[in-house]
């Protein structure tokens, strides 16, 4: 669901399950190199109603309750049925624009947001969507006994009221640049349907697993768990009924199977591994769409800063400079990525291109290690005071071919400068456990982040308060934390940008991570599906404008 997805900081551990193949594809130029998106074919033609769009998903949803789940698959299903918030991001400018609200005003002290709902917005059963739905949903989700996992989203909200059916007044504690995102923290549920039922128990609330009434583009028609879910168009959707009559989500065991189904025409839309990218581009029945996501998806190697060896900045810099990002991008990511050196990707409006770049320089890496006292022995491996420079590198989940590839390549590259590395791949749960629980028995870890459009939300991964969960490596820089606080309270965009650029410089100087690459987003859609326009938000934002050519 979008509310949880956005206002919960959108810092999601990225699970990249990618494979291997030969040859180099020709992806969309990176932002700043001539374009941010590219469509497989122009979205031309005359839209027409009808048809079924079948898509593949590798995991099934758990529940349609938007305030009970944390998984991405459930979020998608919930978005289909309960889509719609007061505001949204414009797919081109990325500015916050109205969605269910037609307008809003902000008080002079920037703590009170007054939203006016659009006229004639309706639930799928024809009842009007009113401010009472928002307030009721907020009240339910905010009750401690209802255990909303992201209840902390509401911490900044002082009051959430509805003076009339079309007005919502949200008061927040303090003026913040991200105040509107905090105020728009609720995706409404139909009060007239849900209030009859129990909020928590699916046995006492049929809407949790079989929602009959929603606000999204789609209505649930059938859900056969671990097999498929069928949705039909919502005639009363506030942005207009989708052209497509039915949306079917097929649950498949892997991206490899999804790709084969896309190739055979059994499904219309699937994501696939970089290994299949080249083949996908050559398929006669498939358009491959590419874009650089505004919420950039970047990979890194994190240092465990508790380890005395890695507390020496020279060692961290040496390890960073011993890595050839180009090899990683070419061999592991098949060119579908670009190098990055900063805490925000180049697609971010606060990206600082002038941060120190610890690019590949083997001689400099060796020199730094020498300076740090790690000398090469007869076996070519480095040691200091009788202790060998041996490091443990973790990656996970162990099914993630990209992370495995990164770990393997850096192991070899570090061996060349005399650093011995033991690589271990772990199952996802075990990996998170190992990273975040004492005794923190590792030195380095391969992971990824999906960053946020507003830079403020990234404070969590650099905050002392989030050690050891989000900040697994244990990075602490009080100046960085202070700058984040300043950035959240600064309303002038240019001044904010400077603050976040300063943060990037400080972080890169400290080098708690080796920033590796930002991944290009891409997907394959059947050529019979038209109306797709990739944007930095992806392709799904205008699903109601897609149509099937017959």
């Amino acid at each position, binding site marked *: 669901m979008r509310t949880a997805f956005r206002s919960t*900081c959108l810092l999601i551990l990225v699970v990249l399950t990618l494979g291997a193949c030969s040859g180099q594809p020709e992806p969309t130029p990176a932002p700043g190199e001539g374009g941010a998106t590219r469509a497989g074919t122009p979205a031309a033609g005359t839209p027409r109603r009808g048809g079924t769009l079948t898509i593949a998903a590798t995991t099934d949803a758990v529940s349609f309750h938007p305030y009970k789940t944390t998984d991405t698959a459930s979020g998608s299903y919930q978005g289909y049925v309960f889509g719609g918030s007061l505001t949204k991001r414009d797919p081109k400018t990325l500015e916050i624009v109205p969605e269910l609200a037609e307008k809003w005003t902000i008080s002079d002290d920037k703590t009170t947001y007054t939203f006016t709902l659009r006229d004639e917005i309706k639930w799928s059963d024809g009842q009007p969507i009113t401010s009472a739905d928002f307030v009721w949903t907020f009240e339910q989700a905010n009750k401690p006994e209802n255990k909303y*996992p992201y209840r902390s989203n509401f911490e900044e909200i002082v009051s959430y009221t509805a003076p009339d059916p079309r007005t919502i007044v949200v008061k927040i504690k303090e003026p913040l640049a991200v105040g509107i995102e905090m105020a728009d923290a609720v995706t409404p549920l139909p009060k007239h349907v849900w209030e009859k039922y129990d909020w928590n128990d699916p046995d006492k609330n049929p809407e949790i697993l079989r929602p009959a009434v929603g606000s999204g583009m789609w209505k649930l028609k059938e859900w056969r768990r671990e097999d498929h879910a069928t949705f039909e168009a919502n005639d009363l959707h506030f942005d207009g009924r989708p052209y497509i009559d039915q949306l079917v989500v097929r649950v498949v065991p892997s991206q490899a199977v999804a790709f084969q189904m896309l190739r*055979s025409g059994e499904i219309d839309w699937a994501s696939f591994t970089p290994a299949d990218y080249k083949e996908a581009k050559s398929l006669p029945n498939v358009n491959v769409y590419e874009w650089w996501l505004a919420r950039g998806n970047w990979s890194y190697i994190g240092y465990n800063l508790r380890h005395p060896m890695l507390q020496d900045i020279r060692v961290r810099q040496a390890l960073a400079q011993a890595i050839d990002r180009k090899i990683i991008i070419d061999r592991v990511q098949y060119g579908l990525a670009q190098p990055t050196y900063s805490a925000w990707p180049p697609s971010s409006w606060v990206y600082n291109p002038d941060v120190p770049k610890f690019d590949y320089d083997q001689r400099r890496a060796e020199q730094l290690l020498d300076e740090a006292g790690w000398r090469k022995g007869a076996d070519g491996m480095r040691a200091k005071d009788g202790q060998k420079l041996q490091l443990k590198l973790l990656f996970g989940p162990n099914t993630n071919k990209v992370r495995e590839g990164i770990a393997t390549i850096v192991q070899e590259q570090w061996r060349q400068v005399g650093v011995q590395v033991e690589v271990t791949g772990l199952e996802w749960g075990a990996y998170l*456990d190992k990273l975040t629980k004492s005794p923190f028995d590792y030195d380095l870890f391969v992971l990824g982040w999906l960053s946020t459009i507003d830079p403020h939300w990234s404070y969590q991964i650099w905050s002392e308060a989030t050690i050891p969960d989000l900040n697994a490596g244990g990075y602490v820089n009080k100046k960085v934390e202070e700058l984040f606080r300043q950035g959240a309270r600064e309303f002038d965009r240019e001044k904010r940008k400077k603050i976040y650029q300063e943060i990037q410089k400080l972080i890169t100087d400290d080098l708690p991570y080796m920033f590796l690459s930002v991944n290009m987003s891409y997907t394959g859609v059947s050529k019979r599906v038209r109306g797709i326009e990739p944007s930095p938000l992806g392709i799904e934002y205008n699903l109601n404008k897609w149509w099937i050519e017959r």
Partner: protein
Amino acid sequence: MGRYVFRRTIQSLFLLVGISLLSFVLMHLAPGGPVTMLEDPKMKPEVIAEIRRSFGLDDPVPVQYARWLWGVVRLDFGRSFIDNRPVIDKILERVPATFQLSLAAFIIGLLGIPMGIYAALRRGSWADNVVRVFIVVGNAVPHWWLGLMILLISASTVRVFPLGGMYTPGQDTLLNRFWHLSLPALIGAMSGWIVFGRFLRSEVLEILRQDYIRTAHAKGLNWPVVLRRHALRNALIPVVTILGGSLAGLFSGAVLLETTFSWPGMGRLAVSAAFQRDYPLLMALTIVFSILVILGNLLADLAYGLVDPRVRYD
């Protein structure tokens, strides 16, 4: 017989408790508990603590196990950590799919019996060689891998089989269901062909060398009668012992089969439960699969006594 069944049932109950205890401990020893899997970076520590408490994970493992066992005694397997539904409901809704696939695979797998007999009777012929090669190769190749290869070939060339699922959404016809069932059932049946084929071939060859077969011939009985009355009847007795085991094996093998073919049955549910660390669901599935295996073996033992008069239950 009655006493034997009673004794075996009591033994099975102890066995089930042992399996459940071992499974429970192993689950809790595995790194990354259920809360880790639910955890989102933004969730606050107090929320995580509350989730742990509500799942009962704050209690010592022996207390958790005792509570779980007490629930099971009252036929309450608990609620899923993931979606708060009773786990028994989640399992029951998957039973038909698993039953459909397992039964189809089992029935088709019985073709291994005539296959083995035929190979034995035509020993040294090309048919016998084909069966022997098939058995050796089939034994060596993982069946899920073979299934994947067939899926890949089917996707890239002639689309003989669908690429998974029970039926095409929107086309829920009997024919469509048969089409979707065909490949997973054939792959599932392979173990039956191999086990029964190999067993029957060697059993029939062995029996054909016995004195009583020679005697039957000497008495002037014709070959079909010797074969039907003396050879096959005796050869089929030991098959009963492996029937129960293979039926149970089909259910436990459903994990791989259902995952490979996107079949929404109990096997796939077990895989999801394992990845999500959904302890109550995983425990309930462990018990269900264990009961099936124990029951299969018990039935085989009982059937053995029925078909072979020399066997007596003490």
